[in-house]
C-alpha cells in the first residue's frame, strides 16, 4: 500500500511521464513513417519532427525524475 507522500506527489510526476511518453510515441511514429520512402523529404521529416519530439520527451522525462521530491521531502539540516 503506497504511503501518503508517494501518492500525493504521484499525479504531477505521472502527468509529466504521460506527456513525455506521448511526445516520444509521436516522435517514433514519425520515424517509422519517415522510413516508408527513400526521399529527401523523409530525412527532413526525421530531422524536423522525429528529433525534436523525441528530444523533448527525453528532456521532460529527465526533468520529471530530477524534480520529483523523494519520500519524506527534504532532510532537515542538523542543528
Amino acid at each position, binding site marked *: 500500500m503506497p504511503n501518503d507522500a*508517494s501518492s500525493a506527489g504521484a499525479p504531477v510526476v505521472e*502527468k509529466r511521464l504521460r506527456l513525455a511518453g506521448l511526445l*516520444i510515441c509521436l516522435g517514433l511514429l514519425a520515424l517509422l513513417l519517415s522510413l516508408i520512402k527513400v526521399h529527401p523529404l523523409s*530525412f527532413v521529416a526525421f530531422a524536423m519532427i522525429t528529433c525534436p519530439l523525441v528530444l523533448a520527451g527525453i528532456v521532460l522525462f529527465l526533468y520529471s525524475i530530477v524534480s520529483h521530491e523523494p519520500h519524506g521531502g527534504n532532510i532537515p539540516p542538523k542543528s
Partner: protein
Amino acid sequence: MATSTLFEVLFIGMALALAALVAFRAELTRARGGKILAFFTLFILPVLAVGLGYSEHMQRAESTQFCLSCHVMHDFGRSLYVDDPSYIPARHFQNRLVPRDHACYTCHTDYTMFGTVDAKLRGLRHMYVEYLGKVPAPADIKLYTPFNNRECLYCHAGARAFEEEPRHTKTPDMMSKIMSNQMSCMAAKCHDTVHDVDTLKDATFWKGGEQDAE
C-alpha cells in the same frame, strides 16, 4: 526490405509500443519495476531508436534513388543510360564499374578522412536549395570544385588496365602528374564527356539496368 531495415523497424515499433504503455499507464511507474521500465522506454530505447533511424537515413542518402528523387537531378539520372561509352558516368554505371544503387555517391564523395561528412553536408545544402532556394536549370549545375583525380584513383590506381593504358604513359612524367592531380583526368580533355545533360535530347539510351538503380 533488407533484413537490417526490418530489424530497425521492429525495434522502433517495440520502442513505440513500450513508450505508449508508459504514456497511457503511467501509474505503472509507482512500483520499482515500473520505474526501471520508464527509464528504458523513455530514455534508453528512444535514444537507440533515433540512432538507428539516423543511421538508416544516412545510408539511404547514399543511394541513387535518393539523389535522383529531386526533379532537377532527373536528367543526370538519364545520362547514366546514354548509349555512348564516351560518357564517363554512363560507362561506369552500365558496366557496373560503380554499384548501380550507389552510383552518384561512389563518384561524388571525397575519399578523405571526412569525405563522407562533407558529402552529407553538401547533400543538406542541395536539399535546402531544392525546397527553399532557387533551383538552377540542370545544365547550369556545376561542381563546387574541379573533380579531383583522387576520386578516380580510389578505384583505378593500381589497376592493370589503368597503368598499362598507353595514353596514360605517353610521356615519362604523365603518370606521376595524374597521381598528384597536376593533370586532371577530366579537365585535360581526355575524359571530358561527363553528364553533359544539355546534349541528352539527341542521345540514344540503353534500355537495361533500370531496376538496379533503385
